[in-house]
């Protein structure tokens, strides 16, 4: 009998396998391999969640050696929640992408292998319990994400990919030096070995390593003011790529920030927790402001990502409180599903109208009602309206802030919600405008509309089933 725990190995091996198979067989078979592979991965992760009854992390010792000599994979509730998010979002996106790229063989030829490597890298990153192995997974994620931005081949995409590449390389360079200092200080790179060794008075090199690694990860997460690379990359890439990047890739480095902050660097993190919170507040205000001013649809969504990432960092002064972790994980999942839906819907709208501008949306409510409805549902999640998962996330965030008398958190969260409402209603108001009936729109396959709708509906319905998701995480369920 195969233990559900070894499923985690398959979550890494399967996407690697379909990535190389797609490279060898070409785009037509590759697309099917991607969809079927993602479906199996989703099935595996749902099974893992359903049979999850363990309060302590489950360890898989690669090579059978065990840390610190070997590399351990560790699955706990937090990692499982991220695995679930990744598979559940990437399955509809692969179905969407198969249709989206169907006319353009030159793009999809490279999309499928790169998407497979990206998903494998994400899954490997979530379960890695070794700081050097995490570096390798970060490079898989970073380089495949950059390559995915570049597959469009347009001049703006190449420039955006280059800018993104330099950001991600500086981030991993800083992280790597942190790993070098940690190995020098303690002689190990295994998290399980390192955490008990840190103690109350770690050497200065360790504090420096913490700063370097957390800085590198925040740069990769595009936390304001390190967000400069994100809007052109996410706003310029092909729609399925933008969706994968905004929903999942930035969450991966955020997940690591959270994990290292609360586990490895807890002793140095307390004193500087206000920095990410302040930057997060800045991200919410600045990102929303730029989204309100945006002219292009995808730029608006990309700046919205900058803003929504800010919420993730708002809870840092409340760490390691379990309520804060729950709030931020809920926000990560809510934003992941909603943003994937939004980029997918934007892809449909842009294909239909042939232009990426708000003005081009006039009359679309009558022509593409399902897609506009999906966009509206996803917007509801981002605004935090009940009963969506975004509401649940913001509610938990506000509650956690008020429980510790940190009133600034609810104030910023509510202000951010209002600003979000402004840019969402702005884009919808364009769609409700009447258009001259002579405007022709291209037909877009229905499957793209439905997958966008499924993601949007998922982001709302997650609000109703949020308790189950939160039950994966340690601590009392509210």
């Amino acid at each position, binding site marked *: 009998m195969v233990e559900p725990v070894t499923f985690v190995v398959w979550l890494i091996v399967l996407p690697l396998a379909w990535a190389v198979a797609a490279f060898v067989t070409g785009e037509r078979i590759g697309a099917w391999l991607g969809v079927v592979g993602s479906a199996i991965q989703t099935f595996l992760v749902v099974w893992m969640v359903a049979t999850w009854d363990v309060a302590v992390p489950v360890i898989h010792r690669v090579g059978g050696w065990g840390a610190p000599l070997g590399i351990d994979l560790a699955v706990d509730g937090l990692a499982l929640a991220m695995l679930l998010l990744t598979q559940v979002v990437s399955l509809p996106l692969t179905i969407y992408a198969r249709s989206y790229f169907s006319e353009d063989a030159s793009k999809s030829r490279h999309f499928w292998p790169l998407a497979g490597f990206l998903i494998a890298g994400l899954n490997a990153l979530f379960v890695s319990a070794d700081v050097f192995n995490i570096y*390798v997974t970060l490079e898989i994620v970073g380089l495949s994400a950059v390559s995915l931005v570049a597959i469009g081949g347009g*001049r703006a995409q190449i420039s955006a990919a280059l800018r993104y590449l330099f950001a991600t390389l500086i981030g991993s360079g800083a992280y790597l030096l942190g790993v070098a200092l940690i190995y020098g200080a303690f002689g190990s790179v295994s998290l399980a070995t390192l955490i008990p060794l840190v103690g109350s008075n770690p050497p200065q090199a360790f504090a420096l390593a913490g700063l370097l690694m957390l800085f590198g990860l925040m740069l990769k997460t595009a936390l304001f003011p390190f967000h400069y690379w994100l809007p052109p990359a996410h706003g310029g890439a092909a729609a399925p790529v933008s969706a994968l990047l905004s929903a999942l890739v930035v969450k991966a480095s955020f997940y690591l920030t959270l994990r290292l902050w609360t586990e490895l660097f807890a002793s140095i993190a307390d004193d500087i927790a206000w920095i990410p919170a302040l930057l997060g507040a800045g991200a919410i205000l600045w990102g929303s402001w730029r989204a309100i001013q945006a002219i292009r649809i995808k730029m608006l969504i990309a700046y919205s990502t900058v803003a929504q990432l800010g919420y993730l960092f708002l809870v840092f002064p409340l760490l390691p409180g379990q309520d804060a972790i729950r709030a931020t994980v809920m926000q990560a999942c809510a934003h992941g599903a909603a943003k994937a839906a939004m980029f997918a819907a934007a892809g449909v709208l842009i294909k239909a109208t042939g232009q990426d501008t708000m003005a081009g949306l006039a009359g679309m409510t009558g022509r593409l009602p399902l897609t506009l409805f999906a966009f509206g549902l996803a917007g509801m999640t981002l605004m935090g309206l009940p009963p969506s998962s975004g509401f649940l996330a913001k509610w938990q965030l506000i509650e956690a802030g008020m429980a510790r008398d940190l009133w600034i958190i609810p104030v910023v969260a509510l202000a951010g919600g209002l600003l979000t409402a402004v840019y969402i209603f702005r884009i919808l108001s364009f769609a409700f405008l009447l258009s001259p009936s002579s405007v022709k729109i291209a037909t877009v396959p229905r499957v793209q509309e439905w997958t966008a709708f499924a993601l949007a509906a998922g982001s709302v319905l997650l609000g109703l089933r949020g308790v189950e998701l939160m039950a994966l995480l340690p601590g009392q369920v509210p």
Partner: protein
Amino acid sequence: MSSELLFAVVGALIFTLGVAGTVLVANLLRRILAFNLMGSGAFLVLVGLAQRGGESDPVPHAMVLTGIVVAVAATALALALLRKQHEMKDSEEELTEIDDG
């Protein structure tokens, strides 16, 4: 100071030079060089620090081998993007020249 520690310090200097370079240098090819300096500096810190007692340690050696391969992969990708950008800039300028003519 042992030779190993000396090389770790040199690594720290080279990393710092590399970071300053990636931030300050405008030319993208030069920025790729600076990024490679960052990597080499970090590798020197890793091995130098691990061996500061004087004994050779195979674990960081394996990590640096991994790191060198990752660095060349990143460099090649960066150069490909850079050359593609350059190629497109060229063809665009030709187009505008045709327009002007």
